[in-house]
């Protein structure tokens, strides 16, 4: 990444960080209902990967997917409006925090059944190959997803069919409240499974946006060239609890501290400084990010609720919901 690219990535991460913070505050204020799974701390995975992808590539994410939606072009306002059940939400308030989707930019959804989207990503990659484009598909998922059956089936199919798909695990050390190490037979839940599918399995510092960008670029290039899928395990950490107001007391204080010191934004700032970017330039990016998010919060708050009649639309492609004639 050159300084301009890295600065852009930094600003994107700053926007995501602030949006997540806003979502948290809005949840505590009762303005976000249901649940949220915040990705603060995971920004570098989404932003680094996106920087390595083409605009027409496909991305599939999980219920912890705000960062992926934004990295693929969803605005903080669209996202927050969705979380706040507004008609202007990304999914017209029908999806909610767990299902952010921006199909127009290839962000084909956030799925809330652990592991379910891995076969879908394989299918999107298969489709790209069948249509003769050289798009690739990327599925992002958690460490916990590596123990579910769909993971295994997707990886094997992708490997056998040599599909242009990347499986990127955001290993944040925990499922909901249980350490992944307690329930997984190998130390690296994703990378250690790659040999079972005869594909590359790499580990990357998921908090280093440059490292992520480079790893994804390399593996994406391979996939695009017809050399098949790969598994990338990005080590990262969530700053908030698993969901809603979870205080995450199950995590040792010194572990939290260590990871907070290894913050993706700090790391990027350090790299920017190394590249000679001036502190004021970085501060300006921060300020722009703050302004964007502040405006997004206000706009989302001001937006109207959805029309109740929308509850009975969009089941079928004709826009309706009739199940009988």
């Amino acid at each position: 990444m050159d300084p301009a690219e890295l600065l852009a990535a930094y600003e994107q991460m700053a926007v995501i960080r602030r949006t997540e913070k806003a979502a948290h505050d809005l949840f505590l204020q009762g303005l976000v209902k249901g649940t949220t799974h915040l990705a603060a701390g995971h920004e570098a995975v989404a932003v680094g990967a996106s920087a390595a992808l083409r605009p027409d590539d496909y991305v599939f994410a999980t219920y912890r997917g705000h960062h992926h939606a934004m990295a693929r072009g969803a605005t903080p306002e669209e996202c927050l409006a969705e979380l706040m059940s507004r008609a202007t939400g990304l999914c017209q308030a029908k999806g909610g925090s767990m299902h952010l989707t921006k199909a127009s930019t290839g962000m084909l959804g956030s799925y809330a059944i652990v592991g379910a989207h891995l076969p879908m990503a394989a299918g999107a990659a298969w489709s790209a190959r069948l249509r003769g484009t050289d798009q690739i598909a990327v599925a992002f998922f958690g460490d916990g997803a590596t123990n579910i059956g769909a993971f295994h089936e997707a990886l094997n199919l992708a490997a056998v069919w040599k599909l242009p798909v990347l499986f990127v695990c955001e290993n944040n050390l925990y499922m909901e409240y249980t350490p992944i190490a307690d329930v997984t037979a190998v130390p690296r839940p994703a990378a250690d499974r790659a040999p079972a599918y005869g594909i590359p399995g790499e580990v990357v510092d998921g908090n280093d946006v440059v490292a992520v960008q480079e790893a994804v670029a390399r593996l994406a290039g391979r996939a695009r060239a017809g050399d098949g899928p790969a598994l990338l395990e990005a080590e990262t950490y969530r700053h908030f609890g698993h969901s809603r107001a979870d205080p995450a007391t199950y995590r040792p204080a010194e572990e939290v501290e260590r990871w907070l010191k290894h913050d993706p934004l700090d790391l990027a700032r350090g790299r920017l400084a190394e590249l000679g970017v001036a502190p004021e330039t970085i501060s300006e990016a921060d300020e722009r990010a703050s302004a964007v998010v502040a405006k997004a919060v206000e706009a989302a708050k001001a937006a109207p609720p959805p029309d109740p009649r929308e509850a009975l639309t969009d089941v079928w492609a004709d826009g309706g919901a009739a199940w009988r004639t």
Partner: protein
Amino acid sequence: MADVISYREAVAEGIAREMRRDPTVVCLGEDIGEAGGVFKTTVGLRKEFGPERVWDTPISEQAIVGAAMGAAMTGMRPVAEIMFSDFLACCWDYLANEIPKVRYMTGGQVTVPLVVHTANGGGLGFGAQHSQATENWAFTIPGLKIAAPSTPADVVGMMAAAIRSDDPVVFFEHKGLLATKGAPPPPDHVVELGRAAVVREGADITLVALASMVPVALKAAALLSGDGIEAEVVDLRCLVPLDVSTVLASLGRTSRLVTVEENPYQGGWGATLVSVVADEGFGLLDAPVRRVAGECVPLPFADALEEEVIPTVEKVVAAVRDLAAY
């Protein structure tokens, strides 16, 4: 084309016709390629369309249906085969939680034009895990269209409609009908989903049936005719969209209703139809409504036992006689 076509051949023919007209139609499933499918319902496809359009998969039902979904979301029209409909349970998350919901939960951003076709039903001595009529499982899930043809021509016509549909369709092919033969479908034959067919007219009672229960109902109707009871037989053809209008119209003529269902009584599709009738058609009814359905037990292996569990012509005749006497 020959004078008659088997239901089995009709499946392959129906898929082939769509593959010819639309290059985005692709097939995937276990042993569907060279082998032509375990039920020989994809014979010839690999030869005509090649390995880039007819894909053999591992035994990975979740990957099969999940990949079909991803492909459908990105410009293809996949036709996924799940060998026996019992195995839908192995990928139920995709049928229940993913495919039928993604359009709605994204506010209409995506569509999922795919077909999952599968061999359904019992009567062949395949035992508890290979004999179920599972169309009622799919019926619990809003967002799936459900087709279950009873004749070869309908297989072709409904397959065309299913593959062309921009909505996901679960297409149930009845194992007990595969060897049956019927009139070949005309060229460009398309049977709109959600239109029941009145396959026998009669003024005394309405029998509503699906798939392999249609011939059962027709045979029962023929026997009853000997008693002077003329049954109207409705072949539902689809569960979603459910053609309630045709059923209510028939009931307007007959005032009596019996459903003939292979799936179990508890949670069977006929229950929903009856509940619509007990509400909207209450004034039309002259007698109780009866459901001849599968017994609420797993499917046993021995044919002597299986016959006790699956509706038979005798059971339908007995139910109708009983009602006629009401």
